[in-house]
């Protein structure tokens, strides 16, 4: 491999990891909801779209930096999630329907409604938040003058990645160390046993849906400085989150992180070496490969197989 080829490969992997960090954040939100409620939230990407529009409005009217708008978007999306779970999904969960997974279909409807509301308010034009640091980057040659290869690190991508990392870390602490976090995990693992321990399972579901929405809403704020925005953008991110959730093994947070990074790197490699248009194809190759070769999720490769489980 010649130096320029190495350069391209390293640059591609690096971009992929940065993208993967954001994907992980999207995936974690979906996997949390999956774990506790046993449903795939197909409005996930649309919730992210709502987060992005919040960041867009704050930027275009008050000139608030998209990264700061997380502080508004996350609580707003939390409340939206709580509302959706409490007044739409929960009542449907209680009904004995002909289709057992009718809540999933409900989430599709929620997604459509959100996308159409966005179209009514903002029209279907593409929007961006042109921040002045959008094209800033760090170069390897700045710190290592004689470096044989050149790699750049985009400032907004890096900041987004670090924010995603911080949010994931915060979530990690919440789920692992606080009683409420443990209660959420307990509900995902055994709902009836959690009830016996005094966990208000219904409340945990509401909180989890809110939390998952807040996470993906924050991901929206991290995406908007490096992406563009239109009302129908949700669908593609729902698919991304879905692929990550399958790849990670339904309901596993660590799996979602690993899945997000793998998907990010793989997409980045396909767009460099096969062309931008092939990136979604790469996503589905990964999806199919996961379904066929690691149906238990990527984490099952690392944990020892247990009998009877």
């Amino acid at each position, binding site marked *: 491999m010649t130096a320029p080829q190495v350069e391209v490969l390293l640059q591609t992997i690096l971009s992929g990891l940065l993208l993967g960090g954001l994907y992980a954040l999207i995936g974690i939100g979906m996997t949390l909801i999956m774990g506790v409620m046993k449903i795939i939230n197909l409005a996930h990407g649309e919730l992210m779209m709502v987060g992005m529009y919040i960041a867009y409005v704050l930027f275009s009217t008050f000139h608030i930096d998209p990264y700061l708008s997380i502080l508004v978007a996350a609580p707003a999306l939390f409340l939206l999630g709580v509302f959706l779970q409490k007044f739409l999904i929960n009542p449907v969960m209680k009904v004995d329907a002909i289709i057992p997974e009718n809540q999933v279909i409900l989430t599709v409807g929620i997604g459509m409604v959100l996308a159409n509301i966005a179209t009514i308010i903002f029209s279907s034009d593409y929007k961006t938040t042109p921040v002045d640091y959008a094209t800033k980057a760090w170069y390897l040659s700045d710190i290592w003058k004689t470096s044989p290869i050149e790699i750049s690190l985009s400032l907004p991508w890096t900041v987004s990645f670090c924010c995603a990392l911080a949010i994931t870390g915060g979530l990690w602490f919440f789920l692992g160390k606080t*009683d409420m976090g*443990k*209660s959420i*995990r*307990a509900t995902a*693992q*055994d709902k*009836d*046993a*959690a*009830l*016996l*321990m*005094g*966990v*208000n*399972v219904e409340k945990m579901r509401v909180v989890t849906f809110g939390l998952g929405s807040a996470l993906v809403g924050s991901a929206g704020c991290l995406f908007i400085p490096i992406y563009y925005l239109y009302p129908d953008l949700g669908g593609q991110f729902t698919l991304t989150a879905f692929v990550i959730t399958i790849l990670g093994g339904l309901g596993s947070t660590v799996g979602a992180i690993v899945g997000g990074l793998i998907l990010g790197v793989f997409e980045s490699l396909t767009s460099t070496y096969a062309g931008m248009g092939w990136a979604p194809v790469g996503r589905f190759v990964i999806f199919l490969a996961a379904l066929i070769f690691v149906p238990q999720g990527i984490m099952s490769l690392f944990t020892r197989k*247990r009998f009877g*489980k």
Partner: protein
Amino acid sequence: MLEIRNLNVNYGDVQVIWGVSFEIKKGEVVALIGANGAGKSTILKTISGIIRPASGEILFEGQPIHTHEAYTLIETGLAHVPEARRLFVEMTVEENLDMGSLKGEARKNRQKTREMVFDLFPRLRDRRKQIAGTLSGGEQQMVAIGRGLMSLPSLIMFDEPSLGLAPILVREIFDVIKKIRGEGVTVMIVEQNVKQTLAISDRAYVLETGKVVMEGTGESLLNDEHVRKAYLGV
């Protein structure tokens, strides 16, 4: 302390519990014995609010609890160690124990009670950071009992604590139940392991196809012709 009055429970259209009444007094060890499918676990699940009764009353310390949400019961001092242990298998031993002490006094005394549980089951102290799903069956049962004790209950209900355990472990578990009783905790125990259960029980009720068919002291039932024939195979 616990009083069940004329309890009827249905699964869908099928009635499984027929007018069951019994009571447990403070400080007693009371057993509910019967064959597979007699409705023992259903009664425990109804007491702890996971299943709603079709009719009848459940009074705990004089208060009706069958109208309460299931998750509020542990705070009243009622702990349920469920059948097949039902641990949170992806959590550590310590986290499982923490889950037993989420509220009130139990939460304040978490560290202290945990030490007490570790004194009762020294093996768990060494395995406190281990994922519960990777423990042996006996150790898992210890965690399940420990988790029940973490709530500082005044009444603890065991559902088939000896299920699937080697005889030596069964004896250990029954010894622990005796110790728990010695601490002043009232015990209700549901079992198919009739002989050992009756040996540690003050009183027992025999359940057949959803009805209480017999009651008496542990000793008198052990000597009863019907019980010996049907449950002890003598």
